């Protein structure tokens, strides 16, 4: 049972790590989103992609918080 628990904890920590690292990759790898198309309501991809990451990052951090709090 205890080995199962530590295994659970380790996979939970791995998920938290991915959740927290994702915004760094998504926003700092500029060449992946430095485009005009596809636009959203006339807003170039570059801008709406970055603003979308504001929301995504907030959600990911919230999930990371909930996962670490339960552990």
């Amino acid at each position, binding site marked *: 049972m205890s080995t199962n628990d530590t295994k659970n904890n380790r996979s939970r920590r791995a998920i938290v790590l991915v959740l927290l690292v994702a915004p760094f990759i998504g926003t700092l790898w500029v060449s992946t989103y430095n485009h005009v198309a596809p636009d959203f309501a006339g807003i170039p991809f570059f801008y709406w992609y970055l603003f979308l*990451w504001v929301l995504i990052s907030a959600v990911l951090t919230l999930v990371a918080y909930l996962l670490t709090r339960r552990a």
Partner: protein
Amino acid sequence: MVNWTALTIFIILFAVVTAIGFFAARWRRGDLNHLNEWGLGGRTFGTVVTWFLLGSDLYTAYTFIAIPALVFGAGAIGFFAVPYTIIIYPFAFVVMPRLWSVARKHNYITAADFVRARFDSRWLALAVAFTGIIYRPTTRRYPGRPGIHGINRNRAPW
């Protein structure tokens, strides 16, 4: 030609902020002879106050004047501020609780205190403190309103 709408909004906001300032000075008054009362609000800020402190640290003259001016003058390069704002929160989520608990245990008041003890280097601590002083005017800090650069609570909000 007086813009009455703008003038009215300005006067109302000025009056409200002034009133809040006088009210806040009496609220949970601390002994300002103690450095942690002056710099950290006695380490008594809870979740809500901390939330506003983090927000006011980010949304400063830097956000409202410096970055728009940079975008106006240099273009999209000014957009570095958006990724910076996004990644600072996962970073703070990992670093700040640990920094907080270590600082609380050893009674550190500033980031420089922590650096001096952790890296055993007075010069590095001096560099951190000096950077904080240079940065200070841009964040409009005053006693009892430490920023993310201070370590400012007794209770962890997370």
